């Protein structure tokens, strides 16, 4: 595609914003909940904001806080949080083919905003679409703005509002449902379906393993399954 025919980066940025904005509905309640829990555990607003701006990773923030609350050593609390986030090294690697050539200053903020929902939106956009790097950067920035913004804002709101945050029944389950919904368009071929099924099965079998290692093994199993089946299919023409 010649760059003369590509849409302007500002237009692509707004496409990203449009795709990212609905996720406010799913990320917002989760972030509110973190703020509420943090305030109930006695964290100041500054400490809660410290978590949500420096870490921006819901599951790891919850895990770390819970362990500290239970009296675990700081090393265990931080180690568990990092283990929960280790999957993001794979996100980082799988963005290399699309954004690896961007200048370092761009890669620095891309890494900062690399949360689950932004990653999934970026891959849904980039896979199988040829577009200039400026477009990819603009789309990523647009998708990340509402998602990261609401995460930080709603953590603060939750910390302020505390127990007055109304509990809408079922909203606790919005994040798992979001992940499921986002993965369905990616299940386009048998290797992908097999990878998903194997990862699910291994995650269930290994869910009690320490330091989130069951999930990491499950992801590895799914990746090997998908890559192997793809290789075999290619070998058979």
């Amino acid at each position, binding site marked *: 595609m010649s760059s003369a025919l590509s849409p302007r980066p500002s237009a692509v940025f707004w496409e990203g914003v449009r795709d990212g904005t609905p996720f406010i509905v799913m990320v917002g309640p989760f972030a509110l909940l973190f703020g509420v829990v943090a305030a109930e555990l006695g964290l100041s607003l500054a400490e809660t904001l410290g978590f949500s701006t420096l870490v921006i990773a819901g599951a790891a923030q919850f895990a770390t806080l819970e362990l500290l609350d239970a009296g675990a050593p700081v090393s265990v609390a931080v180690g568990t949080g990092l283990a929960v986030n280790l999957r993001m090294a*794979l996100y980082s690697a799988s963005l290399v083919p699309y954004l690896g050539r961007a200048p370092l200053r761009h890669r620095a903020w891309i*890494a900062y905003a690399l949360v689950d929902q932004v990653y999934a939106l970026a891959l849904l956009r980039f896979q199988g679409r040829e577009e200039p790097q400026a477009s990819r950067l603009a789309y990523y920035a647009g998708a990340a703005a509402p998602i990261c913004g609401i995460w930080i804002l709603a953590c603060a709101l939750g910390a302020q509002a505390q127990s007055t945050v109304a509990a809408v029944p079922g909203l606790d389950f919005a994040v798992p449902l979001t992940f*499921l*919904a986002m993965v369905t368009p990616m*299940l386009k071929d048998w290797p992908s379906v097999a990878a998903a099924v194997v990862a*699910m099965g291994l995650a269930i079998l290994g*869910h009690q393993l320490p330091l989130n290692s069951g999930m990491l093994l499950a992801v590895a199993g799914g990746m090997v399954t998908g890559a192997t089946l793809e290789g075999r299919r290619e070998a058979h023409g």
Partner: protein
Amino acid sequence: MAELAPGTLWFTIAALGLGTYLIRFSFLGFLGGRTLPPLALRLLRYVPVAVFPALVAPQVLWPTATGGEFDAPRLLAALCTLLVGLWRRNVLLALGAGLGLLLVLELLRGL
């Protein structure tokens, strides 16, 4: 919250924040424009389809909200999201269907 020494909480936040950033930066930052070997590229293509189901599956069977007790409405909501997503290939429609079903089932349970 268990008693913490002064500064412990901020140390925890900083360590977790720095470590998480380095994890996110890792390949994208240090590998940069270098081309990955074909086998690595093939494996990496399956990251999203492996990660998200692996994150979700234990949550569906042992949800945090019920203290890890199996909960039929949450399993049904997950199946609904999956089926609508596979059928219509529309992320928001799939999510809306699953969340809507769960809301209805939760309200019915309250009756």
